[in-house]
């Protein structure tokens, strides 16, 4: 599309095992710490939140990886790290065989077009002083994808895809309902023909019928253009529906990873099982046996020793308080980080 001149365009291809596979996105031991004030009378001990704590995942070309987890477990942070919207504290990100941290500015800017994000909070991520046409068209201008009539047609087409009228183009974000704003964010991300999309709760504010339209749209685009998605959501039914594989996150770490079938039909990790048991549903209203997690949520500043889930885990044994379980792969790639229920 937009050819880049200059020497830094040819970042060295990475030759690690992971990067040689068909993965479009690979993270290796990715970490992000945020400062969280300091403690003590003289404030000598600096505190940090380990928002993302050693995450290694791969997302294959054309695949959707679903990312589910406790609120505050680091999902949005992981998504933003992968796009390099924030800088990691450690670890690396490989996109299409290239180590992102070694890329120069110009090349990174070009890659930006290929990697887009739909932000979790639609209102905060739309400039209130810009009209929708300018918001959705900004990327088209920056990357010189279309002009004049052609650009106008493209904008109308993008809005139509997300179920909005063309007259939205001249309106401001505050004039829309919550779900309509969310769809503006989706249209903006799609405007530059990305290859990889981080979708952070993209349909959380949508009712089921529009949710269905958007999900069908995302799947059609994926089929047609081989798009790759990291799909972050709380709605486990939506995730099951759209994802080929699903990762479960707890306190900065991936605790279980597998195909939708493995996760939903044979969940291993106690946190995953608690999650699945808590999905509200029409059929099971009032009848469901919900696994309740006792105790306080652990502090990410001062996570529990051993398995960080142990204070709330109904199955915790002595070993859980001591050793940190690693994410270990078993049959069919089903990986679990648990010492009592290892991968099958």
């Amino acid at each position, binding site marked *: 599309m937009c050819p880049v001149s200059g020497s830094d365009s040819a970042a060295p291809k990475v030759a690690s095992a992971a990067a040689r596979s068909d993965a479009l996105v690979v993270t290796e031991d990715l970490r992000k710490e945020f400062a969280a004030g300091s403690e003590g009378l003289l404030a000598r001990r600096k505190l940090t939140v380990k928002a993302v704590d050693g995450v290694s995942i791969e997302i294959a070309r054309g695949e959707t990886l679903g990312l589910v987890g406790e609120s505050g477990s680091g999902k949005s942070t992981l998504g933003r790290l992968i796009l390099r919207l924030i800088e990691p504290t450690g670890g690396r990100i490989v996109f299409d065989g290239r180590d992102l941290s070694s890329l120069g500015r110009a090349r990174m800017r070009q890659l930006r077009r290929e990697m887009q994000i739909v932000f979790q909070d639609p209102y905060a991520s739309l400039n209130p002083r810009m009209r929708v046409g300018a918001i959705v068209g900004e990327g088209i201008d920056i990357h010189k994808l279309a002009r004049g009539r052609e650009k106008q047609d493209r904008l109308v087409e993008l809005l139509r895809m997300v179920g909005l009228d063309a007259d939205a183009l001249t309106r401001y974000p505050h004039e829309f309902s919550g779900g309509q704003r969310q769809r503006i964010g989706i249209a903006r991300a799609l405007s530059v023909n990305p290859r990889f999309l981080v979708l952070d709760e993209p349909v959380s*504010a949508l009712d089921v019928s529009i949710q269905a339209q958007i999900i069908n749209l995302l799947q059609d685009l994926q089929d047609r253009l081989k798009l790759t998605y990291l799909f972050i959501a709380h709605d486990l039914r939506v995730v099951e529906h759209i994802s080929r594989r699903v990762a479960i996150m707890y306190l900065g770490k991936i605790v279980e990873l597998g195909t939708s079938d493995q996760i939903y039909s044979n969940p291993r990790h106690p946190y995953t099982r608690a*999650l699945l048991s808590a999905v509200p549903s029409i059929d099971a209203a009032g009848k469901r046996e919900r696994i309740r997690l006792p105790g306080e949520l652990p502090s990410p500043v001062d996570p529990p020793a051993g398995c960080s889930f142990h204070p709330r885990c109904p199955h915790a044994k002595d070993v859980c308080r001591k050793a940190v379980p690693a994410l270990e792969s078993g049959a069919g790639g089903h990986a679990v980080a648990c010492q009592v229920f290892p991968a099958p």
Partner: protein
Amino acid sequence: MIRCNLMQPLLEIRDLQTSFFTEHGEVRVVDHVGLSIAPGRLMGLVGESGSGKTITALSIMRLLPERARIVGGQILFEGRDLRQLSEEQMRRMRGASIAMIFQEPMTSLNPVFTVGSQIAEAVRLHQKVSRAEARKRAIEMLRVVKIADPERRVDDYPHQLSGGMRQRVMIAMALSCRPKLLIADEPTTALDVTIQSQILDLIRELQQQFQLAVLLVTHDLGIVAEYADDITILYASRVMEQSSAGELFSNPLNPYTRALLQSIPGAGGRHRRLQAIPGTIPNPADPPPGCRFNPRCPMAIEDCSRIDPPLEAKRPNHYVSCIRV
């Protein structure tokens, strides 16, 4: 409209009409909406994106955006019409009796104050307590909404929190007022299901213990099925169906309600195409004549585009707006 047996409704909306006034004239976005909620009950308000749920909620609070105005109807709270209150009386009402959890936390949290000071302020609005006491309450409320490490988080600014934490701060603020009526606009969209169910359980406890009445705006029919006593289904500014939750799920009568139930993922196989309702919700500036749903309705006949269907009882305490039922 649902008649609450025995109990006087705490909130009764009658024939509410709210419009935006734009360059192109009046655009009606809440059209003859009525509902009532008794103390201790939870009303689920469900409907397509853009159908007028938030504007209905904001009408009750009298916090409408610029250019929007209530043009008709009554909003009776404990028998008094909120529309008749002075601005000052209404402000006191919002502090003490009616609280709202807004759909987008960032629009109602102030980025330059810590979340603790914002909750403490909400506490002090309706209770005369010292600053130190208010701060203690704020920490307690953060614990109640399941935020880890509340003693430390109380001094965080909104941008330091995750999406779901911000949402819970909003919930903490609303509940710290000990309201009689809680209006919750999509309060758990950013929460994982375990925390979501803990928060909804908490709201249910408050319903039972303190007779809290709740208007819960949500698009999650699973939540409605588990937590709502009554349900109102909105479509394009109008009420399509209204009944108790049990009745609605065992006998959905309006074709829009039925289509909605079929769009839920998980109702069929994995990866199958979801059954979206074809077409889009009409632009409120240019609604179709007759039944608002007729252009998309699989059951529509010619009369549907001519007759405005009234909301009528088709079964005991089950109100439906559809000429084909």
